[in-house]
């Protein structure tokens, strides 16, 4: 990496996009029976950063997104859910990517599922007397579904971003 400043600027811009995407999708809640099922548009950015840069960069963008989103519009309670979902998602995606067995699509699917699992896990811990079992079935489907969409979009964005950055010499 011969230009850390340029890299930081890219990451900061991408984090900003992720924050705006997160806010944008919070304006249109999906008509689903399970809380915290979201489109996960911000995850497109995280997955893209994971493949264009590396896991550490993805973690940076993810945490920045969680922190700023929480300050701006999620609140403290939102922070707990957001942070846990993002952390669980990042961990599984980094792990699966490292094995080399999965494509960007598989990594995204796992990321989407674990993001939701993390969030509903926080709900089970914080809210008394509810059990996971009734939420799991739709949640797994939704997580996989959004993961597929996120994966395809991220693949496009990854290719485009790599092209742009190769031209401006950021990566090498």
């Amino acid at each position: 990496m011969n230009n850390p400043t340029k890299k930081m600027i890219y990451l900061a811009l991408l984090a900003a996009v992720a924050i705006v995407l997160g806010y944008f999708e919070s304006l249109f809640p999906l008509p689903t029976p399970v809380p915290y099922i979201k489109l996960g548009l911000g995850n497109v950015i995280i997955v893209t950063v994971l493949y264009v840069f590396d896991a550490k960069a993805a973690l940076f963008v993810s945490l920045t997104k969680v922190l700023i989103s929480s300050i701006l519009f999620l609140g403290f309670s939102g922070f707990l859910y957001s942070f846990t979902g993002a952390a669980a998602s990042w961990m599984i995606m980094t792990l699966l990517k490292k094995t080399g067995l999965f494509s960007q699509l598989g990594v995204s699917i796992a990321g989407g599922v674990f993001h939701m699992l993390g969030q509903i896990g926080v709900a089970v811990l914080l809210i008394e007397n509810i059990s996971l079992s009734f939420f799991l079935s739709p949640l797994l489907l939704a997580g996989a579904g959004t993961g597929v969409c996120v994966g395809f979009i991220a693949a496009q964005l990854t290719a485009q971003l790599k092209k742009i950055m190769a031209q401006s010499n950021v990566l090498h």
Partner: protein
Amino acid sequence: MKIKKADIILMLVILAASGLCYLYVAAKPTGSTVCVYSEGIFYGEYALQQNQEIEIITAQKHKNTISISDGTVWVSQADCPDHICMRQGKIARSGASIICIPNRLSITITGANALDAVVY
């Protein structure tokens, strides 16, 4: 992007797990009692078969209204910002729950009815 075998396997595993969870839940019987927790504290227990409306007001003066009628429970009114609790529909199976995360409210069905499971 080339889709790999591991991706397909992962997707199938998730679909299978989702199906198994659904089967587990669908086998649960209708419950008998509605158990309400507000802000971490037990609020009350109500009979599922008794039509009633319960208003829960939190310390911050937030209000949810729970309606019990025809053997099902749902949230008929809430002042939380997203109203996800109201969209969670009507529940009746033992173990099912509705939660209002902003108002820290949980409604869970417990116990088991003498009737067979109701498909809803």
